[in-house]
């Protein structure tokens, strides 16, 4: 057990699965990667994008806020 450990790339279940199929556990291969490519996702001013990362978690008091979305990651769409 790893206390405050954030992630275990060698989770025993994943290791067992990979061993069963004789495949490498790519999670433990160590490539950290870099930043993903940016750009290319342009929204029109005032347009509420729905394919976003933060669809409303609203409770029932939240009523359709629908602020213009300049950043697709920071949108709330509201509920009924």
């Amino acid at each position: 057990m790893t206390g405050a450990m954030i992630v275990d790339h060698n989770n025993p279940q994943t290791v067992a699965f990979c061993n069963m199929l004789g495949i490498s556990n790519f999670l433990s291969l160590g490539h950290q990667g870099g930043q993903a490519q940016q750009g290319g996702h342009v929204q029109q001013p005032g347009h509420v994008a729905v394919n976003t990362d933060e669809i409303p978690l609203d409770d029932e008091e939240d009523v359709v806020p629908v602020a213009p979305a300049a950043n697709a990651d920071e949108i709330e769409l509201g509920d009924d």
Partner: protein
Amino acid sequence: MKVAIEGCLHGELDAVYSALGRLGGAVDLLLCCGDFQSLRNDADLDAMAVPQKYRALGCFWEYYCGRKRAPVLTIFIGGNHEASNYLLELFHGGWVCENIYFLGFAGVVNVGGLRIGGLSGIYDHKHYYLPHYERPPFSEDTKRSVYHVREVDVVRLSQLSSKLDVFLSHDWPTDIAFYGETERLLQRKAFLRREVHDHSLGSPAAAQLLATLKPKYWFAAHLHVKFPAIVTHTTTNSGTSTSSTSQSDPSTQQPQQEKAAADITRFLALDKCLPRRDYLQLLDFPDHVFDGTIQHDLEWLAIVQKTAFLLEGGDGRRRQPSAIDQSDPSLFVPTPAHIEYLRETLPSLEIPAANFVATAVGYPDWNRQAHSAPTCTKIITNNCCIYLY
């Protein structure tokens, strides 16, 4: 076999199990369509992308620590609000606690002969062609990109030849809104209108899988609204597969004589778990008998084996290897001999619940530990601490 399907869970395990309990134990299996939030401790909260006001631990940790036990076998996929660090550990799927199974970033399993596939995450074209490069501790960017659907997983699922009974996704397949009562949906969610009509609502990756796999049932969540639809897949004599809406549009219909076969997918999106919301659906599969176990799927195992090399390498800035050739979408379809080989060599297909291993300390033990070692920040692992001390 009685199956309950739940939309977005958002950590409300107690509430959903309580609702199932009021049905008198009539449910054998619970399927959850994402935003499960398998948060074990405060550190996991740091790995979950969520607005500050919704940042809460929830009750999963009690199941993780063994204080509570899931009363119903539960299978879930990931959404866009997850303990992504924990789910990444179990990329190929696994038990997140006793009686609760994560289907993986992509996966297929069998329960009582019911064949269940799923794709975790949501679609974002910015990251679709990239490898799974994210590793904790996540930045604010990777905390989100980690749950974006990747082409490699869609390609792997596309290799399935045998019919799926059920498929789970978090976001909706693109254009699925046209296969049900579109106007009724837009009356409830008026702000969807623009994207429904410009065909940008939903996941093109999921739409591709819907047209390819043609499962009997497809369940989704994400938009917090109940929406049923029926998709009729038509295979023409030329061999191409199309989908036609149940709301007849003569201009889009294939000539009757070209129709050779038709499969139907019954789509259902469900709401999040809140009072008076349509977050739960019960289905009876009378031809299937629940035996209490989850079984590996042989065809899927063969695909995983055959495509494992696609997951390796990549630095996060480059496209997936050119081995993914869209001109030959069935490049990695396993042969019957491959599947038979696995059948003969694997000792058992059952995924034993005893496989579950706790890899982190659950709240509140984690909390006590963190306070007793103030120099260890949340993002430093115990292993790192060992090196530091």
